[in-house]
């Protein structure tokens, strides 16, 4: 159970998954690509929680489960805890990671892009870079939803990446 995988391999697999579904399988259907990437994340999250909670008693309420995701689960996956957890006490939680590991090497600076690519509008390049990043975020959203579903909490998860490399995940619990 203690086997590990090189992080660069994980990065490569995640990038290739996004590239395959957005640029290949569902090139003309971004909505389907997003749903497929999220579904893969869901299964990964669902299975990882079973593994990471092996020594842990069950969670007695939603907040305990969310805290587990913010601390232990996040540390296992991203080597750090969530930086900030907010809630409106009505079933919505916002998990903010100020330096989301999977975005730290993603460039979305249009001026840098346009210097490399000739005869391309920088606005278009900026837009396509943002699109790629948002596609990539469907995977961690699925992971969180799968993890919480396995712990008995039905929810929907969306990502806010307006402040890169910070990223916020909004969890809405279904009742």
């Amino acid at each position, binding site marked *: *159970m203690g086997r590990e995988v090189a992080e660069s391999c994980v990065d490569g697999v995640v990038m290739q998954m996004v590239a395959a579904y957005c640029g290949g399988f569902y090139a003309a259907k971004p909505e389907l690509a997003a749903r497929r990437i999220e579904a893969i994340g869901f299964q990964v999250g669902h299975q990882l929680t079973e593994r990471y909670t092996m020594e842990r*008693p*069950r969670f007695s309420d939603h907040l305990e489960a969310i805290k587990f995701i913010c601390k232990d689960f996040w540390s296992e996956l991203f080597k750090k805890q969530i930086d900030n957890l907010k809630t409106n006490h009505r079933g919505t939680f916002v998990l903010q990671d100020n330096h989301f590991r999977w975005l730290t090497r993603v460039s979305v600076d249009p001026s840098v892009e346009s210097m490399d690519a000739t005869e391309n509008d920088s606005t278009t390049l900026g837009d396509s870079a943002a699109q790629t990043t948002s596609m990539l975020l469907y995977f961690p959203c699925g992971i969180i939803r799968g993890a919480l579903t396995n712990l008995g909490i039905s929810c929907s998860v969306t990502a806010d990446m307006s402040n890169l490399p910070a990223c916020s995940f909004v969890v809405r619990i279904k009742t």
Partner: protein
Amino acid sequence: SSDIHLLWQKEDLAYQHQFILHAALDVVQDLAWSTNAMFLKSVDRFNDLVVSVYVTAGHARFMLLHDSRSEDGIKSFFQEVHELYIKIFLNPLYLPGSRITSSHFDTKVRALARRYL
């Protein structure tokens, strides 16, 4: 004809055991949210048979129908089975909730039963 009768009795007993375990699932459903302990001992009884259960954080339920046994042995058995289950569960080709058909898993569980129960 007496052989057929004996076979029928054995099959009937197997069905009865399945029935007892399934009936206990309702008890487990309620208990699982009232305590966070994974090992739920003696959640149900039927004549001289007892049902013990192990419920993970992911709400996977291991049900054991047994006569009187050492609680420590049963708990250790469940913990080892949990580890085996996780190995199956992490296989990307295994569909969560589907029947576990691995003969390796079956062999290992039977070995654990002989060792702890």
